[in-house]
């Protein structure tokens, strides 16, 4: 693909809200900073979920960013996404002091989520089942629709170019990159907010507890490491501002890095009875396709921001896929060790980590390999629960790498 410029990013995560706070949290973590996995997240009722272990955006107050008005009917996912979008638009300079500096008709949105708003669906089913469907709140009901949150983002920020919601499980926000690239290439917009979000909710937590994949209590949580005994849930939202080179240059934008390659693949399980499975072959093919898309070779990849979440057989399959294509040389990182599995937001949060690394923050947490002294290209991976995998390559922006 043609390289596209990343000119800013905005996020809400368990370790920090906004690019600067996120960067500071990564620095703090590299010096042994605090663990954000709580046993009492405020959005999980202990009567319903005894002793959970999860990372929530605990100090997130949408009002602080959006004001008091108009938030009443938003669910948590919508608030997370709107704040991330607002911060990304400001960070990239597309908006200043809340005002669009360029035409919002030319700014698109590509937003991923894996499960949409389970909070809204649960609320609606409770009313419908325990009271009467006649009492459903027509102002809250729209939140049950998967693309409602992204629709609200476009309304709040007045973004009028294509608005795309992508549902692709853990791969969503990387697949959103291809979607944005396609629309930018076809001239449907000059800039795209690309990323996604996921909110922590009781049904989501209970579902993963029921599937027995969570590292709760004494269970070891160590994404990408053999001793790990499960994953932990996080939540958050993140958008990168992706622009055509022409637009970024014409408006004199500060470019943080370029996205230069995308790849994806799907491999079915061998057994007809299986649904959930992981395929090292899909990981390999996604990496190869991204390399070819970026016209790079395996030797060009310095660091891999892996999708390792702590589920042992998933992490092992991913690592074997990485090694099959890239060998043992590149340094492999597990960003999810910091803030847990955030599904729709995962790829975008991983890309936010990469942007911080390019900006001088120490690379980590390292799963294997040695931290390189200099990084030029980072591969970001996502691995789905049903045999799919996606990959994106980010390239450092240096004087020599500027694209005409």
């Amino acid at each position, binding site marked *: 693909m043609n390289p596209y410029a990343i000119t800013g990013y905005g996020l809400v995560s368990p370790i920090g809200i906004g690019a600067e706070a996120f960067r500071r949290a990564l620095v703090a973590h590299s010096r042994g900073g605090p663990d954000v996995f709580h046993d009492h997240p405020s959005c999980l009722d202990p009567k319903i979920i005894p002793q959970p272990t999860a990372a929530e955006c605990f100090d997130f107050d949408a009002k602080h960013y959006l004001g008091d008005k108009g938030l009443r009917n938003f669910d948590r996912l919508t608030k997370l996404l709107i704040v991330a979008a607002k911060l990304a638009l400001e960070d990239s300079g597309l908006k200043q002091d809340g*005002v*669009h500096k360029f*035409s*919002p*008709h*030319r700014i698109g949105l590509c937003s991923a989520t*894996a*499960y*949409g708003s389970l909070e809204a*669906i649960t609320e*609606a*089913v409770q009313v*419908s*089942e325990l009271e009467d*469907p*006649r009492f*459903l709140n*027509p102002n809250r*009901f*729209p939140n*049950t*629709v*998967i*693309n*409602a949150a*992204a*629709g609200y983002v*476009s*309304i709040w*920020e007045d973004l*009028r*170019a*294509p*608005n795309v*919601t*992508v*549902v*692709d499980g853990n791969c969503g926000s990387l*697949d959103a990159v*291809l979607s944005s690239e*396609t*629309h930018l290439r*076809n*001239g*449907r917009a000059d800039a795209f907010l690309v990323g996604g979000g996921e909110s922590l909710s009781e049904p989501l937590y*209970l*579902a993963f507890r*029921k*599937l027995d994949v969570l590292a709760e209590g004494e269970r070891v949580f160590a994404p990408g490491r053999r001793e790990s005994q499960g994953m932990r849930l996080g939540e958050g939202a993140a958008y990168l501002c992706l622009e055509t080179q022409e637009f970024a240059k014409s408006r004199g934008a500060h470019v943080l890095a370029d996205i230069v390659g995308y790849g*994806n*693949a*799907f491999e*079915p399980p061998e057994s*007809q*009875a299986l*649904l*959930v499975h992981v395929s090292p072959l899909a990981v390999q093919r996604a990496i190869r396709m991204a390399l070819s898309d970026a016209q790079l070779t395996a030797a060009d990849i310095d660091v891999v921001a892996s999708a390792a979440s702590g589920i042992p057989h998933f992490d092992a399959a991913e690592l074997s896929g990485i090694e099959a294509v890239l060998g043992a040389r590149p340094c492999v990182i597990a960003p999810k060790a910091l803030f847990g599995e955030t599904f729709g937001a995962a790829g975008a949060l991983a890309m936010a980590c990469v942007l911080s690394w390019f900006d001088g923050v120490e690379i980590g947490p390292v799963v294997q390999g040695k931290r390189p002294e200099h990084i030029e290209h980072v591969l970001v991976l996502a691995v*789905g629960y*049903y045999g*799919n995998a996606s990959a994106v390559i980010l390239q450092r922006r240096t004087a020599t790498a500027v694209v005409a």
Partner: protein
Amino acid sequence: MSRVYVTGLGVVSSLGFGRDAYWKAVVEGRSGFSTIESFDTKTLDRTVAAEVKGFSPRDFLTAAEARRMGRCSAFALAAARMAVTDAGLLPKHLAGDRTSVILGTTMGEADVIGELEESWIHGGNDAVLPNKLPLYGSTLLPIHLARAFGARGMVQTLPAACAAGNYSIAFAADLIRAGRADVVITGASELLQKLQFAGFVRLGAVAPERCQPFDKNRKGLIVGEGAGVLVLESEAHAVRRGATPMAEIGGTGLACDAHHITRPHPEGIGSLVAMREAIARSGVTADDIDFINAHGTGTHANDKVEALVIREVFGSRPVAVSSMKGMLGHCMGAASALEAVACVLTVQTGIYPPTVSYETPDPECDLNLVANRAASGRADIVLNNALAFGGYDAVVAFAKPGRLPDPNEAYRAALSDNAAAAAAAVAP
């Protein structure tokens, strides 16, 4: 940039299964409406929907497939099998990484999540069956199809509410044009489910018995369900295997109203951009469009704004317009996919589907409607409108093969127009 052809169609709908049964019912102006049987509608004051009756998954799916998927995926896979057969595609054509599956939906496996939630609410945590949990996740829709056909390229779900079908078709065509796939199985699938039905009723959008698009006395939409699937192929792939193209995918227009979550912008700013883009990116002008398969939901707001937008785009020229929702209901995510199937058949046959139940003209919807009976006419280039919840607008053009100019020229022209627009754009 390759031309993109439609080579196969598949349908699961309240009007019939398979494109022939579906098209026959459409041309005859039959209604797919009936009393809802799949759930209890007491207390809701609305009992009618375009429910798919007599769908038995095992008629289309293996036992293992039927076990591992919900009704929404089963609709999609059944329609996809029909479309693949219709296209004459053999397993050897579909196996491998050059075949992708891109599907749209609004709610996905709404019945799976509905049952899980209900068992949790009534029976507590222990009542939830763990083996049912992985069946939820709209991610699965295209994955089930990819598994069935040995496709190993991109799998993606695009939940763009009631424009999901068109969003998927547009993205699928873009993937082929960008050289990222040779064949894409695309379209959308949607279920009638009680929570969502109740929600639409509470939004005041549901008509009591019938849906009357563009009629002065229209009372709202009738909820529907089903799946429409199209096989899209690159020109080179279609030629190589000797396939006969049914229609060419022309330009596609996507935009966002950024106005209100359930209501259209009063001047239809997003719809206007989407219609104009679809025409411009086809390399033609509004004068070349023969027919519009409108979104026409039968709600007061949609029909009024859509009529306004059509008049704005076409001026005084009375282009033929019709909405199928009086027969098919509003199948939400699947609506524009099912209507896209009809557009392809219109291009093939020169028959415009009727707008049924049309009685009283509405001065606010001053259109050249194909009222009550199907009509024949030129159908070289037709548009499929989808104007959705969340302000998502998507319009796709379909054309007789050989009728459209080279897509490279059309896209170059659209790009330079957009570049000029961008240069002229200033902060509002």
